[in-house]
């Protein structure tokens, strides 16, 4: 099994949208996928299941060693696509303790997911690279970083890289899949210039070729509790996430070969 943390230094960069639709793209391709909401705000659950605030979830698993993974998994209409909501343990919303405090439980969670036969565990984390998010990254095989195509976001890149460098000391096998530009507005010069600046700043292999556009379809999909590819007019947007999936698969192949 491969575990991928979807994380960013800044909030509001489209992590949840990317996580939901990318997980759906993998599941559509036959990859048995578990999407985990590790954001205490519970955005994945709120987007895809209306009862998410009633479900036990990831943070309950961290808090209670007695909860089996089976109780947390929410199946979807797509057989290969399952969810774990963030859960009820609301005390984590205040910060949830220091880094390393939940590492053992996070790793136990991932071992259980692998034992249950999932091929991919995609984890949508809270913003920032500390606390439980840090523990998730320090336990995952790979990380991808959504980055909003706007100047303020690009200026946060050094802090992001420093944070990732620290986490890689703790998890040396962590594979950095790269930065994915999100909310790109091709009709706005500031957005396209920020995207170009990021590509110039970072090594080419660190920035995904695929860019996620800002699109009203995402809002509509979220309102209906669906991945965008399920909408009648969502085929174009689904193609974007299929392209991103292909890029990730290509990046993971050399890692898998290295063992």
């Amino acid at each position: 099994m491969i575990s991928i943390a979807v994380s960013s230094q800044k909030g509001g960069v489209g992590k949840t949208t990317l996580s939901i639709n990318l997980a759906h793209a993998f599941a559509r391709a036959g990859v048995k996928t578990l999407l985990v909401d590790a954001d205490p705000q519970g955005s994945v659950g709120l987007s895809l299941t209306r009862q998410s605030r009633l479900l036990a979830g990831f943070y309950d698993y961290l808090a209670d060693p007695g909860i089996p993974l089976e109780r947390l998994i929410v199946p979807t209409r797509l057989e290969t696509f399952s969810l774990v909501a963030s859960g009820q343990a609301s005390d984590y919303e205040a910060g949830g303790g220091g880094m390393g405090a939940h590492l053992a439980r996070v790793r136990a969670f991932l071992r259980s997911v692998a034992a249950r036969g999932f091929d991919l565990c995609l984890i949508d984390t809270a913003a920032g690279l500390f606390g439980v998010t840090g523990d998730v990254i320090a336990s995952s095989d790979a990380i991808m970083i959504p980055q909003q195509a706007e100047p303020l976001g690009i200026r946060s890149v050094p802090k992001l890289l420093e944070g990732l460098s620290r986490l890689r000391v703790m998890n040396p096998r962590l594979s950095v899949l790269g930065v994915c530009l999100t909310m790109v507005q091709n009709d706005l010069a500031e957005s396209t210039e920020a995207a170009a600046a990021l590509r110039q700043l970072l090594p080419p292999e660190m920035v995904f070729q695929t860019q996620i556009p800002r699109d009203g379809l995402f809002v509509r999909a979220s309102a209906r509790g669906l991945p965008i590819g399920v909408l009648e007019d969502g085929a174009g947007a689904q193609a974007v996430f299929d392209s991103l999936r292909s890029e990730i698969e290509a990046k993971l192949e050399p890692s898998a070969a290295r063992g």
Partner: protein
Amino acid sequence: MMDPIYPWLDPIEVRRLAEGLMKPHREPPTAVEDAGFDQTFVGYATDRPFSPIAPPSFTPPQPPAVAPPLAPVIAAAVEAANPSIARGSFLDRITRFRDWMRQQFSATGIFILDREGAVIFDESSHGRLHFLARSLALASRRQGASGGNVHVKIGAGATLEVIPVDTAYGCLVLGAVVSDPLSPAHVAAVMDALAQVAAPPN
């Protein structure tokens, strides 16, 4: 036209960090045989109870019944037990420093690395902890001009405290396994004591 981005950051440093992150990890070769942490060691807390393997002659001291004394008392303790006051050979001073660490903080697995990462003193041969300590010390130094202490949980009730100390012979990295992270006052006392241990004769 948007504000230029580059005045806000150092492109060369950003590129260096980014390229470092994209390099696949290679395990560094090590000649030190790990005695205490085998393949099951994950670097942090595990589901299993932490049980460091100590040399046969070393019995870990019992945790103190009361919390370690606060800053003014620590200063007095350093003075009373200061390993540098009665000078002897470097090994004698380091040994007294180790005993003091055990007595004051119930520290185990104490080791000291030099600025090149070579082992100066080690009572446990925890090679993997050496690598972790060196990496953490380096990472902490990147954040600012002088490195502070770093600690990381390595097991249930066990924390690796890493304290870089500037001495006349360069930076030494002290590693010690303690039950709880040391307070800033305790860290300052340890840094002071180790600096004196490593100070050249007057």
